[in-house]
């Protein structure tokens, strides 16, 4: 079956946009082909520094012929309606067929050639491509991420002819900018295309480029007894910066090794996109780097290595300058500077924020087992490095530098560690702080952010979360849960913030496979102790997986429906149920079960043994089932007491969770 090959060749596409572009191209092509009735056997896309490529296998050369049925006007409808219908269908009235009092048109539609459809599809894709940022160039009105130079489009080895604002389709492309032959070459199908690109020094597939980079790095390292410091984010980026990625190892002046290794790595990564290397089995870095060049240089990369080494030296000299100057300056002048730094127009300066964090850290400290005075001091110093030269240059080193500078200044190592770790966790894979001091400052930092932005009504909406409040809330949740802390959140925020935490906790628990309705059922109790909430949810989850649990839930719903229905007629009778008549076995059984349950349930809840509490509730299952099946609640003689009994069931269960919010 015929194959479609499409290449959109442009000037250099930003590395960070390439992966998404490949996905968008695939999605758009699939949608267009499906709308035309095509279902390719395989459809693959590729993105690289200068090209987006699509190959679709197994397309027919034309659509199948179709018969369309169109419903026209009713018999006896005004003549204008008939005229309109005939115009639309291009038929005459005698060609219409009358069916159930309506004129019908049957139109034979010839399937269109696939090439026509492809031409329309490419134009629609090019004009509608969702680049995060796009531009116009020359006199054109066409938008693309950078100037679009040529389009290769062949179906079954034939050019699909079209032109989009002067960019004509063809069967030619070009190779590597510097290593390939300067002239374009022909490719009529995917195999030819890949082969000829390879011959002209272009690796089409990003995964192959990554493999080539890693392999090249490892070979270089092996020869010098070094080990690559792997960095997935950097690998993804450099694989989008070169069509023929070629690792080159360069030397770094070893005198820079007295800088913190994170500073060297950050400087290498953010400014220069270099990989760092280390000696196997040793801490710290080795005085070399690997840059990923786009060419195999005629001299084996000597000039490239030397040039890059020089640039790195200049960068690291800057870093050394900051490191030296910062250590001379120290914390107090930085804190002074924070007076002039606005945190947020409505939330005051950074210095004011520090004051709030200090107060919060002081309040939190005793609850997490930290020394109050030390927590306040760590909080006071935690943000100072924002005014340092190094953090000004490399914002991602915030906290870490504060820790280094605190140790350099001879401050209490515990305080230094708290300063260093207080931004943690910075993402789902980042560890949470574990020392009580760091926990106190980390919680204070995040709570101040959350309370502040909630107070000025800057809550996240939809996909918008400019102040990363979701991440902050999740950080609080993880710090509390992973450290097994017992903290009441209500002390720190109003209802909306507590609801926000509930929401985030739901997401966390859902990611762990817990049902969100269980979280709702537990949150409804008004508890704000996360550890207790999670323990309840876990016990509830376990309980509802048992037969007793499922049946008791069903019983609860029945009971609660009866109560709701009766409540509509008037207030329910209050008070405890009285002992039923001795001959009513089902009533006696439930009455006794409720009475027996009371003490142990209260004890289990008090000791936060929620599994135990569930086990107690399990004892209700049989009696509840028997009661609901055998007792007529609305019996005029017994109605009040029976309603009281059902209410007692609901209340007993309600101490564990709001079962009414549980689905099923």
């Amino acid at each position, binding site marked *: 079956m015929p194959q479609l090959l499409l290449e959109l060749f442009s000037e*250099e596409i930003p590395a960070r946009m390439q992966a998404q572009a490949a996905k968008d191209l695939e999605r758009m092509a699939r949608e267009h082909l499906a709308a035309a009735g095509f279902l390719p056997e395989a459809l693959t896309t590729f993105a690289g520094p200068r090209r987006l490529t699509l190959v679709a296998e197994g397309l027919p050369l034309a659509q199948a012929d179709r018969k369309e049925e169109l419903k026209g006007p009713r018999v006896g409808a005004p003549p204008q309606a008939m005229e309109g219908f005939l115009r639309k269908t291009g038929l005459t009235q005698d060609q219409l067929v009358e069916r159930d009092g309506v004129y019908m048109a049957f139109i034979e539609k010839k399937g269109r050639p696939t090439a026509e459809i492809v031409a329309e599809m490419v134009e629609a894709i090019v004009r509608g491509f969702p680049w995060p940022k796009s531009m*116009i160039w020359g*006199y054109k009105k066409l938008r693309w991420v*950078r100037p679009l130079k040529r389009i290769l489009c062949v179906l079954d080895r034939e050019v699909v002819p079209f032109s989009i604002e002067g960019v004509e389709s063809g069967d030619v492309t070009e190779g590597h900018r510097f290593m390939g032959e300067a002239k374009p070459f022909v490719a009529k199908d995917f195999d030819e295309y890949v082969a000829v690109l390879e011959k002209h020094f272009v690796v089409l597939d990003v995964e192959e480029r990554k493999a080539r980079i890693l392999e090249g790095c490892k070979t270089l390292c092996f020869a010098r007894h070094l080990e690559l410091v792997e960095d997935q984010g950097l690998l993804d980026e450099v694989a989008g910066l070169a069509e023929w990625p070629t690792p080159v190892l360069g030397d770094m002046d070893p005198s820079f090794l007295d800088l913190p290794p994170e500073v060297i790595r950050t400087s290498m990564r953010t400014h*220069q996109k270099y990989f760092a290397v280390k000696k196997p089995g040793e801490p710290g870095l080795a005085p070399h780097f690997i840059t990923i*060049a786009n*060419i195999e240089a005629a001299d084996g990369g000597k000039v490239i290595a030397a*040039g890059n080494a020089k640039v790195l030296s200049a960068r690291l000299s800057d870093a050394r300058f900051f490191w030296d100057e910062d250590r001379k300056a120290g914390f107090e002048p930085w804190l002074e500077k924070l007076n002039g730094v*606005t945190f947020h127009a409505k939330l005051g300066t950074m210095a004011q924020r520090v004051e709030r964090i200090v107060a919060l850290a002081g309040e939190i400290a005793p609850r997490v087992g930290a020394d109050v005075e030390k927590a306040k001091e760590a909080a006071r110093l935690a943000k100072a490095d924002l005014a340092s030269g190094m953090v000004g240059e490399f914002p991602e080193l915030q906290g870490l530098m504060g820790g280094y500078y605190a140790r350099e200044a001879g401050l209490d190592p515990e305080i230094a560690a708290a300063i260093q770790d207080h931004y943690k966790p910075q993402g789902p894979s980042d560890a949470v702080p574990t020392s009580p001091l760091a926990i106190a400052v980390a919680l204070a930092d995040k709570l101040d952010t959350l309370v502040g932005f909630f107070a000025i009504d800057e809550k996240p909406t939809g996909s918008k979360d400019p102040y990363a409040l979701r991440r902050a809330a999740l950080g609080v949740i993880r710090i509390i849960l992973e450290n097994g802390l017992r903290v009441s959140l209500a002390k720190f925020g109003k209802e909306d913030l507590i609801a926000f935490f509930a929401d985030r906790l739901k997401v966390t628990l859902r990611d762990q496979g817990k049902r969100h309705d269980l979280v709702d059922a537990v949150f409804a109790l008004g508890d704000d102790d996360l550890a207790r909430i999670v323990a309840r949810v876990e016990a509830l989850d376990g309980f509802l997986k048992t037969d007793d649990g499922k049946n008791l839930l069903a019983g609860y719903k029945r009971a609660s429906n009866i109560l709701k229905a009766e409540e509509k007629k008037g207030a329910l009778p209050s008070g405890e149920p009285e002992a039923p008549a001795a001959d009513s076995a089902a009533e006696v059984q439930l009455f006794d079960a409720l009475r027996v349950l009371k003490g142990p349930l209260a004890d289990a809840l008090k000791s936060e043994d929620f599994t135990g509490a569930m086990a107690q509730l399990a004892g209700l299952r049989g009696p509840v089932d028997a009661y609901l099946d055998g007792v007529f609640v609305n019996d005029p003689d017994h109605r009040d007491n029976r309603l009281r009994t059902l209410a007692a069931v609901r209340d007993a269960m309600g101490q564990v969770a709001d079962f009414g919010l549980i689905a099923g």
Partner: protein
Amino acid sequence: MSREKPKSFQSLILTLHDYWSRQGCIILQPHDVEVGAGTLHPATVLRALGPKPWNAAYVQPSRRPGDGRYGENPNRLQHYYQYQVILKPNPENMQDLYLGSLEAIGLDLRTHDIRFVEDDWENPTVGAWGLGWEVWCDGMEVSQYTYFQQVGGLDVSPVAGELTYGLERLAMYVFGVDNVYDLPFNDPDSALGATTYGEVFLENERQQSEANFHGYDVAVLKQQFEQMEEQVPLMLERSYQGKSLVLPAYDMVLKASHLFNLMNARGAIAVAERASYIGRIRDLCKMCASAWVEQQEAA
């Protein structure tokens, strides 16, 4: 003129002039008002607007008062040179033309690693932005390459492509010099004697740095800024032969911008005020841009 590899700062400039002249550019001289970047020369900001084609190359001294280091930093200067090329509309082969200029100054593209790395350019004081790259040679940024999309807050059509080379940095790289002041300014074998960049500019860096950081009277700067700000709309209201005086008005915008940079270097602008000053300059620039486009379209 000879097409040998340049050996000095000035021959680097001459080589670029020669190259871009051969591509058909007009070779202009610097604008005579202090500017922070070559882009601000009216030959770029104003000529990028309106429908008329325009191809020019020039050297522009650029003043960054806050970057002064009293001549003590090997590569930071408060006065340096940018080489600026504007091609409007951008030719189809603009990237190739640019790479040709690197070869002209002696960079072998089969030995050096040239990369186009995403960098979207923006200059908020003139309400301009564009998409493009910083061009790396062996990991060093040697040029900024931009396709203008807006200037003075107005959409451009046709699009101009802009190239900016930081001349000192490029020269240091090409000549393998680590300190800008050691750059050979003229031919090191000159019969009249070799002169270094430092002999020409070191004293200027020292004196200007002191003036930038301590010398200028903030009150006077502020007053001058406000005067310029007042004068721009008045100048635009005047006209000659039916055209409002946009060119002198734009010079005043540039002066206001430089005065702002001086106040900033003096530490006289609080963080919170910065955005508002930039906004004021941008507003002035937009007035000029609109008036200019009107004149261009009428012509």
